[in-house]
């Protein structure tokens, strides 16, 4: 029998508070979702009883910290169904994972006149590193256009990919409008041309099961804090055959094998990409977050969120002033709306007074906003602990906001 939402809610200490005198309704899960007690407890436990610097330490605490960290690597490997645990690199988040990829892949494989493709639906984190890399290398950045429904134009993509293309970067789920991209198709087309594919999974990992081998992506990136884990920890997955050919991103301790004044030999995978002391507390928090997701079941999480999302869409469609941004074939996690004639900052300010947390603004995706001709939206995003009652309260509150500005 599956766990009740009421019970799942009780596992999140932060949800049981009032904001401006109203019960907190947290619908900003796309920015970061809340942490169950077991994740918080794991971090406290680590610093209370296990803290020591990892690897190479001979003493007891160093040994148990190292073991816990390396066990997490194996758990992440299973979570993604990666072929090898050394394909799992710990970073501080999706942004760092993508910067690592752009820097290191760029150094190994991208030169003048080469082409890099990104989708028009990307977060700035999967756009700016590629733009900067192309400027530095004299390479060309190409953007897969968005269609009015919020889906990507795959025909245009097929036309733009060529023998000059070195890598394609697409998010699995758009943070700005919730589009689920047809990544299997994109990977298939890219591989037909022998081109590597990176999937930004930041907005996907908390909504559905990930299988990097079945998906056959070459790189996959995500953050712990958008999947019930702590901030400051992220994952960079890459196929071993690529990682072995890519140079380190940062240099320093941990990632070397031999150092003299004149030369250095780098450590093997995965340590080659993990310079400096890792965020062990964060890694163990992520481990616990994976356990939390697996205990509930990712399918159950996805089903519950979809139920809430579809109901929210249905209710929003009945409100005159509300314009829903995009109508993608498949949507996950988030809905972006504008209220005609009412600024998103005003809407979010009043909703906040009613205890409701939503995101307003451009969602670090200015090209997406520009495409839809808005300077910002209100984004409602869902997690396993949200309830039907919260959605009804939100919709009611939105109507109240409209009443205030009319």
């Amino acid at each position: 029998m599956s766990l009740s939402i009421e019970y799942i809610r009780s596992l999140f200490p932060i949800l049981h508070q009032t904001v401006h005198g109203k019960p907190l309704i947290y619908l900003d899960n796309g920015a970061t979702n809340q942490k169950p007690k077991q994740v918080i407890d794991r971090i406290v436990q680590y610093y209370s009883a296990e803290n020591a610097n990892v690897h190479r330490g001979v003493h007891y605490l160093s040994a148990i910290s190292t073991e816990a960290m390396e066990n997490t690597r194996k758990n992440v490997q299973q979570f993604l169904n990666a072929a090898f645990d050394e394909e799992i690199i710990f970073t501080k988040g999706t942004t760092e994972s993508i910067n690592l990829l752009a820097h290191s892949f760029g150094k190994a494989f991208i030169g003048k006149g080469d082409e890099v493709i990104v989708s028009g639906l990307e977060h700035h984190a999967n756009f700016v590193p590629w733009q900067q890399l192309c400027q530095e290398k004299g390479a060309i950045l190409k953007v897969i256009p968005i269609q009015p429904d919020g889906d990507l134009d795959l025909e245009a993509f097929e036309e733009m990919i060529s023998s000059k293309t070195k890598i394609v970067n697409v998010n699995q789920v758009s943070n700005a409008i919730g589009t689920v991209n047809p990544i299997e198709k994109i990977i298939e087309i890219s591989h037909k041309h022998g081109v590597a594919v990176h999937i930004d999974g930041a907005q996907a990992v908390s909504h559905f099961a990930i299988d990097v081998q079945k998906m056959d992506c070459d790189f996959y990136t995500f953050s712990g804090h958008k999947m019930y884990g702590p901030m400051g920890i992220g994952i960079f997955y890459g196929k071993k055959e690529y990682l072995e050919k890519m140079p380190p991103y940062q240099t320093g301790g941990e990632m070397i094998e031999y150092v003299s004044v004149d030369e250095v030999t780098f450590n093997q995978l995965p340590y080659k990409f993990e310079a400096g002391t890792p965020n062990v507390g964060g890694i163990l928090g992520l481990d616990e977050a994976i356990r939390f997701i697996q205990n509930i079941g990712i399918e159950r999480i996805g089903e519950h969120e979809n139920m809430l999302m579809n109901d929210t869409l249905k209710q929003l469609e009945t409100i005159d002033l509300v314009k829903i941004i995009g109508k993608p074939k498949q949507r996950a996690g988030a809905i972006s709306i504008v209220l005609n004639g009412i600024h998103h900052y005003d809407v979010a300010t009043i909703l906040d007074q009613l205890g409701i947390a939503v995101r307003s603004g451009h969602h670090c995706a200015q090209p997406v906003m520009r495409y839809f001709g808005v300077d910002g939206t209100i984004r409602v995003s869902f997690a396993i602990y949200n309830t039907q009652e919260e959605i009804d309260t939100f919709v009611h509150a939105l109507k109240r906001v409209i009443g205030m500005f009319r």
Partner: protein
Amino acid sequence: MTLTEKAENIVAEFSLFGDWMDKYAYLIELGEESDPLPEDLKTKQNLISGCQSQLWLVAEYRDGKVFFRTDSDAIITKGIARVLTKVLDESTPSEIIECDLAFLDQIGLREHLSPTRANGLNSMVKQMKLYALVFKTKYENAG
């Protein structure tokens, strides 16, 4: 009226509101009735970027006093800007420079002026004081 008297008036006005809804409804009203800036004054130079909402500030010095005009694309931001100009407008540069904005605590709007808010109001107050300082230096310290 001195700046202090104007601040006292605002505090008295806001004390009439029973709950936050009335207060925000009033801010919206202030925002809506506040004269929009002509488009040619909504320049980059007059823009105070607040990330989420845009805010424009224009200042003039006449007869020993400073006159402010503001506008924003978000109504609540515009309303709060109006509250600030109601107090600071038509004051002497010295009054503006010395003003501590304690009245904002009394009417419960201080949170909107936190530097971490994305509305630009904090920067606007700094800019208002900077204008006052410039006018004071330029027109009053000459002799």
